[in-house]
């Protein structure tokens, strides 16, 4: 059990900066998820922590110890790889016991630990099999088991679920969360899937182009994204963005997208005052756009005229793909909504849940 600290870490490959001034402190027993699009540097950061990559600058600490020059085996970490990286010539038991055998752990202690891990993961029946005789989900469990038996201070996961089918992924997500609660150890988990991040993490670090965008709890990331990238990356379907201008008319501050205009409620308007007359990007999440017939009580709404382009029925909700002038956007509305393909209608935007970003810096205006 230990905290993990990235102190101004850089990793450069020639001119390419894969990790750019990464500064994160992961608390002991925390479940931190590094999330970002492919090639954003999250895996490089994890591999640097594991000791599989040398960093170009900065410090990485596990606990209080700087591990920059410590060999992977001496960092007291265990890693679950995307490809599982099971040793194909060894049985499941030997795969899990491999690291312990190398460390000259007594035989009965190895057996105890492997049995215990196999119990936790429900793979006792598979211990004598070879990896090729296992399904993807079983291999995944073995890979996790191999990490558990080592009883490391920190668990590292590198996109461990991306090779599984959708259903299994959901099940394994829950199991990994449970495992974290049970083991009470620091987990650092890399994924490009924001749903995995949202469902499992204590805190999420959103990374783009090697730069940390925001490090917060899932709920704060969702409700108060720092910038356009985080706002667009977290949430599915993603937030709708409308380029426009902040305009003042009398004592009202409004967003003018060219195709429609919405008034910002006075109680929220204050931080935006300074940007009046400037280019901004107006953001609103799909669930904050309602069918005018099903507006929840006590919200400030602004009506916008749209044409329904596509409808997707999900059973518990409906996704509407809407067009307003040059803007297309998504609304997630009540399943009782009667809006159908090709209809002209007015939808209601919940103005209590809007996001406004500076068009030039893409930072959230607060």
């Amino acid at each position, binding site marked *: 059990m230990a905290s993990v600290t990235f102190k101004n870490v850089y990793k450069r490959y020639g001119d390419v900066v894969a990790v750019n001034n990464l500064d994160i402190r992961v608390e002991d027993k925390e479940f931190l998820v590094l999330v970002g699009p492919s090639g954003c540097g999250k895996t490089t950061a994890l591999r640097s922590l*594991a*000791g*599989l990559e040398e960093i170009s600058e900065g410090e990485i600490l596990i606990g209080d110890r700087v591990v920059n020059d410590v*060999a*992977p*085996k001496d*960092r007291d*970490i*265990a*890693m679950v*790889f995307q*490809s599982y*990286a099971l*040793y*194909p*010539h060894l049985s499941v038991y030997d795969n899990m016991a*491999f*690291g312990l055998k*190398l*460390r000259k752990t007594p035989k009965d202690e190895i057996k105890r630990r492997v049995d215990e891990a196999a119990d936790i993961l429900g793979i006792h029946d598979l211990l004598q099999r*070879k990896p*090729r*005789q296992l399904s993807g989900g079983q291999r995944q469990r073995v890979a996790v088991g*191999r990490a558990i038996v*080592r009883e490391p201070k920190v668990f590292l996961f590198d996109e461990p679920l991306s090779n599984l089918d959708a259903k299994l992924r959901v099940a394994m997500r829950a199991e990994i969360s449970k495992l974290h609660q049970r083991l009470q150890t620091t987990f650092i988990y890399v994924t490009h899937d924001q749903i995995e991040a949202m469902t499992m993490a204590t805190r999420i670090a959103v990374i783009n182009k090697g730069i940390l965008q925001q490090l917060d709890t899932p709920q704060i990331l969702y409700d108060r994204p720092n910038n356009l990238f985080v706002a667009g990356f977290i949430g599915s379907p993603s937030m709708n963005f409308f380029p426009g201008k902040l305009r003042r008319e009398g004592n009202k501050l409004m967003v003018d997208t060219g195709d429609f205009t919405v008034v910002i409620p006075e109680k929220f308007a204050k931080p935006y005052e300074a940007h009046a007359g400037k280019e901004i990007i107006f953001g609103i999440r799909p669930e904050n756009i309602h069918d005018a017939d099903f507006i929840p009580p006590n919200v400030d709404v602004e009506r916008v005229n749209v044409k329904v382009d596509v409808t997707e029925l999900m059973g518990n909700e409906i996704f509407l793909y809407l067009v307003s002038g040059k803007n297309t956007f998504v609304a997630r509305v009540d399943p009782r909504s009667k809006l159908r393909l090709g209809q002209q209608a007015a939808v209601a935007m919940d103005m209590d849940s809007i996001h406004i970003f500076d068009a030039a810096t893409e930072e959230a205006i607060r």
Partner: protein
Amino acid sequence: MATAIAKKTRKKNTDFRKAILPYLYLLPAFAVMAVIVFYPLIYQLIVSFTDFQTKDLRFGLASPELNFIGFQNYVDILTGSLPVQNFDFLRVLVFNFWWALTNVLLHVPAGVVIAVLLNTQGLWFKKIYRAIFILPVVVPPIVVATVWRNIFDENYGAMNQFLTAAAQFLGSADPVRIRWLTDFTPPIEWLLPTGALTLAYYAMMVANFWLGWPFMTVVATGALQSIPSDLYEAASIDGATGSQQFWRITVPLIRPAMIPAAVYGFTLSFNLFAFVFFMTGGGPARSTEIMVTFAYDLVRNLRLFGAAAAFSVFIFIVALIVFLITNRITRATESYTEA
């Protein structure tokens, strides 16, 4: 009713066609094999039961003077009763095995080690090395044998010249005159109890090493590159040192590729006719004779076609047994990744 029967026969016909189709596809290959492999094989088997000699060549098996003598040729070979000087079947057989085995034991580990070294990340000119190393594989053995025979020449060979230069460097004035290919005194007498391992054997080992390791390196390189790098990463996190990774990951994972290569190398060395024939001619005093060169000698010098055929059958049987045993013991054809 009539249509039902028609349907049934039609179904039967398609079933028959489906069943026969694979054999039709195999037929051309089988026809070629029959002419170039099966026919000579069977012909030779028949000849091995006769006293086939030069006079029978004109009519072949239809020759009026041809006598079927049963297993006499085989018995003559096993008891050493052939009219040949210095002939001892057991000695030739044991030497042949020893020759093939020592070659493989040298080539495979060397090939693997060199492949591992060449597989080092960040090594310069990797592709050039690999291209150079494939060269010996494509040079005809007769050329290799001739070149190396000259290198080991007593008077003018590069080997003795090199050793002379080395000796001079160390202060000795006498020129080195080692009779590599003609000296019959074995340098290590106890090494092979059935017959002396002459200097010629060691010279052949050196030459054949030059010929043999690149193939093993090529195979090992291919096998190495098929090992996912994350296995090594997982192992390094698990605590494996470089040598532990080599023995516990590299070796078991290239084994499925190296064992067939080793078996192939063994059979190749076992029957390496052109090389042995042109380098030492089986000499001195038949000490480096392998079975195929001996069989050839039976035909070339003694015109004992029947005995030579019987000898070839022995070679075939021995090679087959060797192959079956190694394949069985090592499960050579098993791959780890196959589901």
